[in-house]
Structure formats: C-alpha cells, structure tokens
C-alpha cells in the first residue's frame, strides 16, 4: 500500500512522494448535537479519509476504540493498516511515530492517560521536538500526540495529571487544548494537518459535554486564543477544562456586578500574546486559571508575560487559581485541589479590591 491522498490540497511539508491534505472542509452536513468525544472521533475519521498518510495507533485504540472510545470504529472502517493496537510501550509508540513520520506518514498516537505519556518523555524532548531542526527541515515531524488530561472524573492515582507545563517548555513542539466541541473537531484536524509535532491535550472531563456541531467548521488557527465572553472589569485566562469553570465564575461574578472577560487560550504554544495583551489592556486585571499544580505551572508563564507586557495598565497583580502543589489527590478530595468556581470568584474579589 503506497499512501495516496484522496484530497487535493497540496502541502509544502510533503515528505517523499506521498501526497497530502490539509483539513479540507468536508461536505456540508446538517448540524448535530454531539459530544466532545464524538467530535474528536469524527475529526480522526475525516482525517483518515482525507489523507492516506494519516495513521492512528496506540494502546487499545483499534479493537476497543480506546478506553474513552475516541478512536471507536476507526479500525473497522479503515482497516488494521491505518488504525492499529501497539504493544504496551509508550517510548516505542512515540519512537515508531517518529520513524513513520521520517518516511512521510502523519501518525496520530494516543497516550492512554496523561501520566502514561511520561515513559515517552525522552523521545518527545530529545527527538520529536528537535528532528526538524537537526536535519535543517529535511525531516519534519507531522506527528500528533493525543493526551487525555486533567481531573474531576474520579480517577485513581496517575489518572488525572496535567502535564502541559512540561511540554510547553520544550521548544519545537506545539501544544494545544480545545475547550469547545467545535474546537475539538477543528483543532484536531488542524493539528493533524500541521507540519510540526502537536501535543493535543484532551480535557477528559469535557469528553461527555455536548454542543451543536455543523460540518464543515472552521475555528481559529493554532496559535490563536478566543474570547469566550466579553467583559470590562477583568480577564479570566483559561484553557481546556478550566474554560467552563471560568465561564461559570464569570456568570456568577455578573451577579455581584463584575463584568468579566473570559479568554480561552486554545494554544499554549504558539502563545497568542496579541489576544492576551489586548484583553488585559482593556480590562486592567487578569486571573489565570488552570488545573495543573500552580508552582512552575503554565500559569506562571501567562502571569509573567501579562505582568511584563501590561505593567503600566495593570490595576491589580495577576492572580493564579490553579491546582495545589501536591500530587493529584484522590476522587474524594479532588474538589479541594481543582480550581473551583468559588476559588476563581475569590480571586476576582481580591483583584477587584486591589
């Protein structure tokens, strides 16, 4: 089987003779209310259909369709050469993806849970992130690593980590995380079509959230944030499953007379300085929300950037509402750990009082 493309859009990053396809708009379909999980599943299906170079593999992704069923039905529809189960070996899963990308494929691999991507850390940092650079562009790495992340689902230990800070600090990788059903679809298509490696963090608590999805859909490109709610008094900066938390907090704050803006970062790398700065320049206050432990978390980068760029405009210190600096706690305690609406509101109070 030589990969042939079934779509036409050409791609400068073609490796070898294989043809390619960007996330070309699919034929218009009626709007349907679907889960976040289904949107991801549809994106994978459409990507597999659009481009023969796309392959999906990982632990339990074929026969089972993944423990979260994100790859459900793909092996059946596209066969065992496009979607297959691997031996239980994460470094090798990512390393295999790297080798396939060298040959011109566009692998999409699944890490079953956040903490189970750690064995692939060396492959990620020392190879995936650097291969394009160390070959002066000869071996680009159009690889997508899908990682379900975050807590709030009652998981036992090692099943609720948020590891985005580790990855975002590694030059050469793009790091994105959708927070809406439309973004789940579009950003995954965009990630698969991207010429560079993308770590695609899937907020697993949102898998079962629902919204209308009308295909084809196009949202903002990778590297851009989105204002999810406009407001004048302060900006809540969030991503992934903290976005709904921020939105809910903003609704509540409205009751107290605070008009909050909610910015969904969408892309941690590249970082949308323009959108973030513009919002905070408008509101004069910023509160960062994420689930990962706060210390040296990604929120530190956001807070540092905003504090530097909006120095003369800030009316209050940038506050962070994050996970605690402890190992992720068990189901019965996780609500203490997670950045809750209450904790966000508390920070809003403090920022507004400043």
């Amino acid at each position, binding site marked *: 089987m030589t990969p042939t493309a079934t779509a036409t859009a050409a791609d400068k990053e073609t490796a070898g003779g294989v043809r390619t396809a960007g996330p070309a708009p699919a034929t218009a379909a009626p709007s349907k209310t679907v889960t976040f999980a289904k949107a991801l599943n549809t994106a994978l299906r459409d990507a597999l259909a659009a481009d023969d170079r796309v392959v999906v593999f990982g*632990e*339990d992704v*074929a*026969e*089972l*369709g993944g*423990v979260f069923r994100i790859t459900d039905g793909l*092996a*059946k529809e596209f*066969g*065992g*050469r496009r979607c*297959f*189960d*691997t*031996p*239980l*070996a*994460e*470094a*090798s899963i990512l390393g295999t993806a790297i080798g396939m990308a060298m040959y011109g494929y566009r692998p999409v691999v699944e890490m079953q849970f956040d*903490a*189970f991507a*750690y*064995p692939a850390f060396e492959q990620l940092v020392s190879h995936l992130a650097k291969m394009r650079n160390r070959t002066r562009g000869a071996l680009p790495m159009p690889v997508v690593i899908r990682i379900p992340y975050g807590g709030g689902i*009652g*998981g*036992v*230990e*090692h099943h609720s980590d948020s590891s985005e800070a580790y990855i975002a600090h590694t030059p050469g990788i793009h790091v994105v995380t959708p927070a809406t059903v439309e973004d789940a679809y579009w950003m995954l298509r965009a990630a698969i079509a991207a010429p560079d490696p993308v770590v695609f963090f899937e907020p697993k608590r949102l898998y079962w959230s629902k919204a209308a999805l009308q295909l084809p859909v196009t949202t903002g490109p990778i590297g851009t944030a989105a204002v999810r709610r406009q407001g004048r008094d302060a900006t809540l900066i969030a991503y992934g499953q903290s976005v709904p938390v921020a939105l809910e907090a903003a609704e509540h704050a409205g009751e107290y007379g605070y008009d909050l803006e909610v910015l969904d970062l969408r892309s941690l790398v590249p970082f949308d300085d323009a959108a973030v700065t513009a919002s905070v320049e408008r509101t004069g206050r910023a509160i960062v929300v994420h689930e990962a432990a706060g*210390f040296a978390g990604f929120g530190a980068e956001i807070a540092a950037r905003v504090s530097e760029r909006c120095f003369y405009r800030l009316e209050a210190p940038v506050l962070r509402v994050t996970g*605690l*600096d*402890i*190992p992720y*706690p*068990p*189901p*019965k*305690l996780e609500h*203490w*750990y997670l950045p809750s609406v*209450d904790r966000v509101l508390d920070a809003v109070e403090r920022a507004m009082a400043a």
Partner: protein
Amino acid sequence: MTLLDLPPATGPHHPAATPFRATPLGDTDPLRYLDEHGAPVEGGLHPSEEELAPERLMAVYRALRLARAFDTEATALVMQGHLAVYPSSRGQEACQAAAALAIEPQDWLFPTYRDTAALAVRGIDPAEALTLLRGSWHCGYDPKRWRTAPQCTPLATQAPHAVGLALAAKLSGDPVVALCLLGDGATSEGDFHEACNSAAVYQAPVVFFVQNNQYAISVPLRKQTHALSLADKAVGYGMPGVRVDGNDVIALIHVLGEAVRRAREGEGPTLIEAVTYRIQPHTNADDATRYRDRHEVDIWLARDPLDRLAKYLTATGNLDESLDAAIGEEGARYTARMRAELADEPKVDPAEMFEYVYAAPTPQLRAQRQMVEQSLAADEAEE
C-alpha cells in the same frame, strides 16, 4: 482488523535457516503438576513432600477460596459504588494465592493494581488493602509492616523498585527476597527490561512473576509478543525462565518456591510466566465483549483453578462436601466483615493532603493548607 495479519503467538515461526532461527527456550507447554481435571500429569513437576502435604494443600485451598471470596465481594462492592474502580483477578486466584504463600514475612511483595487478592492472602485487612481503589490517595496498609509495596499502576515501573530493594537486602546480608508481580502487557515496557537485565547483572534476589492473563485491557498476547512464551525473555538476561500453568496452584507453589529459594541462597533472579486468564473485563469500567468471544471465556472457566485443586483434594480424600461448606462459611464471614468495613464512607480530612508531600511542608504548602482549612471552616460555619 489485526495489524498486518500476524500469525498467532502459538503459530509457526520462521523457517529454520540456521543460524537465522528464532530459538524458543524449550517446550512451550507450561509446566504442571495437575491436569485440568485435577489429576497429576505424567511427566509433570515433582513438588516436594512438604509441598504436597495435605495440611499444606488445605491451607492453599483455603487461600484460593479466600482470594475468590475477596474478589467476588470486591466486584460487588464496586458495582454498589463503594469502590472507585476494581480490577478483578477472577480466574487468577492460583497466582494470587501462590504469590502470597511462596514468600516469608521478611520478603517483599511488589503488587500491581490487579493483585489485591494476593494482599488479602498475605494477611492485609481487606479494607486496608482496598484503600486506594476505594478512592484514597494512599495505599492504606503499612508497607513496612507488611513488606508490601503500594500497588503499582504505571506498568512495570515497580520492577526496578523490586530490584533495588533486593539489591539493598543483598548488600545488607539479609536473607530477603523481592517478589515482583507483573502482567503480560507490562513485559513490553522498557522498565521491565531494564529491571530484569539489572537484576541479573547484580544477581539480586528477586523473582519476576508474570501473570500472563492473555490480555492487556483489550490487547491480546499475540499483539504483545512474537515469541512463543514470555518466559523466553529470561534467556537474554542470562537468568532462568520458567513457564508454568497459572491455574495449577501446586505447580505454581513449587516453581515459585524454587525461584524464591534460589534468590534467597544467592543464585540470582528468575523470570516466571504463569499462563492464566482474566475471566472478568479489565476493570468494572471495561466492556470485554468489544474484543473477545464469550466462548473463549467459557473455555477458561472450565479451567478454574479452585475446581482443579478441589478435585485433587477430594480424590486424595482430603476434602469432602461438609469441609468444603465449612470453608465456604469462613469465606462468607470474611466477606461479611469486609462488606461491613467498607459500608461507611471513609473519613477523609483534606488537611491530610498536605501532610505527607514532604517530611516538612514547604512554606508554599503551609499557605495552601491554610487556604483549604479556612475554606473548610467557612463551609462548616455555613452548615
């Protein structure tokens, strides 16, 4: 839908064009003492007299029944919402019991998430053993008192710990053995390899005991290895590799006993593969009908490890219906106690989240603890 239509792991291998030959360790039939009907097999293992003594075997049988009772009850408890998740070891009770019985109190056990029944057989209180699966952040039991590491979820990562502990015992001159439990899937992980290889180099007193239950969640063994046997991996480490029937508890106790003896007497590590089957789905959250036939499960149900020993004990005049019923009642009492202990929601104090992160909390943790405590106090005031 199988990748590249691989031959089954038990299928024919490459044509033997010397020296380009995949060389299996030996006969791939697992070692046995009993056949599937509970009769000693011809040409089978020769357990010692001690291992075959009726009192000993009755104790083993009780352990099997305990493991089964424990597993059945835990499965019920997870359905009722008293546990966050439960990975059942039904069908693997011979392995669970043998692992716990093969070692001495001073030896260390390194269990996985699937080995809670083994912890129960080792004597750990079931409520303690289930602490983590119940939704706490800690393992419940005192690992030093029970010489049992907390159950390990990141696959194969406990294997180097077992090597380190065994090496430490060896350096200390203590006759302590580390028994490391692993699944078939875990043998594909790098940590498994690094641990086995290092253990052999150090000649550390460790036994790697792989419960090959044929699946890693949905992934069958033939997608996990192209070798005929997981025990073959021992060859590369220069250590003995033994493949044993994982539903034959007498064979298991014999083989584990010998491996533990070797380790204790300075003869180095051993890799044991026990061929068994996971009767239940991966956990209560899994749907096994998506990837395997009921028929396959039935075949293995017929190979039940409890039945096998019961038949042997009955045939040898050591077990009868009334004794069996009495043992059943023991089990019922055990599970009743277990049910009672697990009925109440465990008390969790959020402040404890900060207690054990470091010996002394950092200033930052003290502040966070204070924040939680204030918020807790506010909540309570509201009530």
